[in-house]
């Protein structure tokens, strides 16, 4: 049986860990609430942008535009949104798994990362990290999303990359987050969203010029929306992870207290036996 001192030391170490996890849980709860509110506020813009662009493309069917055509050569770009800090359960790992599970060999991929955890994990696995925007993950702004999209579009126009994917964690609700990948460019037209009752739309300037302007904005809004979702998910995941860490620590402390008490009792009994035995020997 472990000595009383060892058990006591172990217990106090777990107790201080528990204090840390408890504090982290509280801070991530507060951060989650903020991030959630922001994600919800950005949702109308995101949704409407998605609807408009898809309705536009559905109506203007066979329009010939570089952003809509798949290219033959070039690499596949993936924008990977993770966090800068760990201790968020499977949050970062799930995204990394999603990326490594792509049906494209790593040598044909270039990675744009936001979040140092994802960057480090992917570069260790031999992926080419083209650009890193990790410092924006803490507090993403619309202008940050704009910068990422400008870089992406430039590479796309120069033919370095043929398609762009986005891997991020979708924030379903506080307890469930889902790693997702969506295709950004070329914009995919799914016939399901086509509404037949839509009125014909006029464009000013001409359609192609309008698309030139609107598609970059569409990209930016999707990336911005994804950043918002990712930040909310990160804090949600951390809150959950820290919550279960705290309750695990509680359990360990309970069982260690039991052991400690038993050891204490044992040592008292032993001492008594020794004293009685000693007294008997003298008499």
């Amino acid at each position, binding site marked *: 049986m472990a000595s009383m001192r060892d058990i006591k030391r172990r217990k106090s170490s777990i107790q201080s860990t528990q204090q840390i996890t408890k504090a982290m849980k509280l801070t991530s709860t507060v951060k989650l609430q903020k991030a959630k509110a*922001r994600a919800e506020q950005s949702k109308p813009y995101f949704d409407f942008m998605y609807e*408009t662009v898809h309705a536009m493309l559905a109506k203007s069917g066979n329009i010939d535009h570089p952003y809509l055509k798949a290219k033959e050569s070039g690499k596949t770009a993936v924008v990977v949104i993770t966090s800068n800090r760990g201790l968020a359960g499977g949050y970062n790992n799930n995204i990394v798994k999603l990326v490594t599970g792509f049906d494209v060999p790593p040598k044909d991929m270039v990675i744009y990362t936001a979040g140092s955890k994802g960057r480090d994990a992917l570069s260790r696995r031999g992926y080419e990290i083209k650009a890193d925007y990790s410092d924006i993950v803490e507090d993403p702004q619309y202008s940050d999303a704009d910068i990422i999209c400008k870089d992406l579009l430039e590479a796309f126009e120069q033919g370095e990359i043929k398609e762009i994917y986005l891997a991020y964690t979708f924030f379903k609700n506080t307890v469930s987050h889902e790693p997702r990948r969506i295709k950004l460019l070329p914009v995919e037209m799914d016939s399901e969203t086509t509404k037949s009752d839509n009125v014909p739309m006029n*464009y*000013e300037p001409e359609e192609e010029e309008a698309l030139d*302007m*609107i598609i970059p*904005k569409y990209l930016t809004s999707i990336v911005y929306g994804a950043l918002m979702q990712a930040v909310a998910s990160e804090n949600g995941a951390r809150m959950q992870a820290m919550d279960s860490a705290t309750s695990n620590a509680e359990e360990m402390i309970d069982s260690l207290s039991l052991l400690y008490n038993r050891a204490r009792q044992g040592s008292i009994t032993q001492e008594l036996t020794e004293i009685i035995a000693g007294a008997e020997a003298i008499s």
Partner: protein
Amino acid sequence: MAELMKLQVICPDRVFYDGEVSMVELNTTEGEIGIYPRHIPLTCIIAPGILTITEKSGLKNAALHSGFVQILPDKVTVMAEVAEWPDEIDLGRAEAAKGRAEDRIKGKDSKTDIARAETALQRAIARINVIK
């Protein structure tokens, strides 16, 4: 009373305006336009300028910087990247930005990004005009 239509001005970080209006005026890349209800369906690109909203209770002004607008007969949706009410604008900052942009355009060398300086100038002017 004139007919009403729905107007929504949506920014990435908030819904800027949502209500019933009788007229909207804004600046597009093709020039300034005014929109009454029952306009033909139209999508325009927004240029920096003033957004004037005519409500039942009166006029409202705001600075509108970039984005696009989708007009339907009974509904106008403005997707604005940046929109500001007059009381959110810092006049001093706008003036300073205007000066900076003008300097950059005047003292142009090959390095200056003229297009960017010009948009910055337009933005600053739009902000200043909204306040006045």
